[in-house]
């Protein structure tokens, strides 16, 4: 990897240069919550001052730019018994992602495995992924983050460049040729020994700040053994079956397809909608049989898919420990607590 350091003010030049010619998505403040805490989201930004470089965690992940919640996969023009199908991957220009945390970059890396690496790569995703210029940025652990447990607290690849604040300057890891070329146009410097040291220190300092964690030792086996555990029922009683966890999750990718017919009957569309395995009809098949009729069986399935099945298939879990689902779940169901309770074969606290 090639490294550079830049003065902090230079970041603005980089932004200005990129945003003049490209669409730029970045973290911005979207309002305050009831206790006055700043809420963040990813949005298109035109103004560097709007970019919240020190954002904590966005409520929704970056996935809608790669896997839109609702996407037209194909359109049809109808002609009596015949029809024509048109396919569009819904991207016509590359875009810049300015300021993505390591967990979200790792989430994309994991999605890459299923959506680009398997026998049937998914072009809708690939077209967006291959056209995203990603600038990563270092972060501060939040109370619900457990990325360190999931091995996603640092991103080794999957970005173009990664920025770390080392006090007076930014330390930059460069991964792509494109990024290297862009950086030639602003003032950069070769890092000196002291810069490397501050970079390492920043990393070490971050490690001490994690409050939440998940013990993943032998987790796949434990999940297997605890398949019938009563613990699941207790979490199932809490779950609303609302799908919020999957919607905020940076790695949940499952979907449903709906067909639409225009009201004048001359056109139709095939629409992909991100779904959630917690929804009541996720596993309903012909004849009405539901393979997972109870909330607990669906909640359990979500954990099995992420923490067992995916691990078996790809040697790593489909959870990056961003903590969003726990944060968003109104029923306060969080990954660390669920896993801990399964591990101990009991429900965490009373209530």
């Amino acid at each position, binding site marked *: 990897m090639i490294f550079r350091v830049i003065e902090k003010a230079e970041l603005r030049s980089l932004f200005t*240069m*990129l945003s003049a*010619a*490209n669409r730029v998505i970045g973290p911005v403040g979207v309002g305050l919550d009831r206790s006055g805490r700043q809420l963040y989201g990813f949005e298109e930004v035109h103004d560097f001052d709007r970019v919240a470089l020190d954002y904590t965690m966005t409520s929704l992940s970056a996935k809608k730019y790669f896997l839109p919640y609702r996407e037209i*996969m*194909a359109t*049809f023009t*109808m002609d009596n*018994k*015949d*029809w024509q*199908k048109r*396919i569009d*991957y819904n991207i*016509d*220009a*590359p875009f*810049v992602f300015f300021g993505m945390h390591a967990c979200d970059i790792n989430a994309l890396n994991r999605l890459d495995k*299923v*959506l680009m690496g*398997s*026998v*049937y*790569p*998914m*072009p809708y995703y690939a*077209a967006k992924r*291959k*056209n995203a*210029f990603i600038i990563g940025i270092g972060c501060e652990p939040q109370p619900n983050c457990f990325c360190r447990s999931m091995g996603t607290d640092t991103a080794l690849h999957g970005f173009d460049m990664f920025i770390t604040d080392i006090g007076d300057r930014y330390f930059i890891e460069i991964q792509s040729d*494109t990024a290297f*070329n862009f950086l030639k*146009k602003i003032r950069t410097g070769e890092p000196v020994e002291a810069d490397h040291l501050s970079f390492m220190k920043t990393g070490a300092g971050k490690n001490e700040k994690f409050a939440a964690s998940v013990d993943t030792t032998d987790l796949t086996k434990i999940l*297997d053994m605890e398949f019938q555990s009563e613990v699941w029922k207790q979490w199932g009683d809490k779950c609303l079956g609302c799908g919020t966890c999957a919607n905020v999750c940076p790695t949940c*990718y*499952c*979907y*449903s*397809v709906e*067909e*639409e*017919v225009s009201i004048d009957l001359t056109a*139709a569309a*095939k629409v992909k909608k991100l*779904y959630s*395995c917690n929804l009541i009809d*996720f*596993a*309903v*098949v*012909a004849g009405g049989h539901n*393979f997972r009729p109870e909330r607990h069986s669906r909640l359990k*399935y979500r954990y*099995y*898919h992420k923490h*067992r*099945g*995916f691990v*078996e*298939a790809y040697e790593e879990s489909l959870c990056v420990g961003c903590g969003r689902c726990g944060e968003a779940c109104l029923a306060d169901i969080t990954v660390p607590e669920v896993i801990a309770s399964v591990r101990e074969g009991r429900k965490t606290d009373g209530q």
Partner: protein
Amino acid sequence: MDNKLPFNDVIDQRHHRRSDLSSFEYTHKAEITSIHKLTEQENLYRIQIIDPAERERFEFRPGQFLMLELPGIGDAPFSISSPPSRKGDVELCIRKVGGLTSFLSRVERGTHVGIRGPFGTSFPMEKMYGQNIMLIAGGLGLAPLRTPISYVQENRSRFNNVDIIYGTKDPLQLLFTYQYDMWRADDMRLSIIVEKPDASWQGRTGMITRVIEEIFEERDDAFFRNTYAIVCGPPIMFKFVCSMLNQKDLPMQKMFVSLERRMHCGMGKCCRCNVGSTYTCLSGPVFDYWTVMNLKEAI
């Protein structure tokens, strides 16, 4: 150089390779060339890919399925029910259960449909050469079973003893009745049983397991050591049948079943068909029974 990022197009013009990015939503346009009513609920559709080159390229193996699309109506998986030798001119036996299938029951010959696939695993017919085969179907299970049956028929000399065992609720639900004589003529023993006979029924009455019990009495243990079984039907049925066969020490890895789940893509993306975290569309629909036993919540 200006600062515009270069656009990377993922589109590739060749639409037939599995790993080709642009093949994901690629549909072969096909025409319904005939519709044959089998029962009140099921029709047999003959569907021919229109482009001759594409038709020739559409190769499949027994047990595989395709995704059938009617624009604006739906897109669903169906097992191919015709011989693999006929390539892109396939037959599907479809039961009317919901939106897409009911609409299909109203379309006419000549309507164009979309086909994606073929997808999924298949029955390893080659492994069964020289062995006895038990082909067991319950209800609509005969639709997917018809492909291995025709495979065996076309390659009859390669197989030893062939039993076809087929059961339905009542005689009116029997599928493909016009083919029974031909199967018998090809030296395949066909045993049919119905649960609820009507006045005209002269054959056997009861559950499929009854036929299997009869076979157990008739054959010695050596027979079962050299036997493969393909079981298609509702989970409750194959669960019973497979555990019965296992009593005769037929290894679970020599029994094959086909699972049915909801599917939207057929390509391991939508997750709807997952059993535990196994994709029915990629690792299935054909599984050996040992694998099924190990899948959580499969049956």
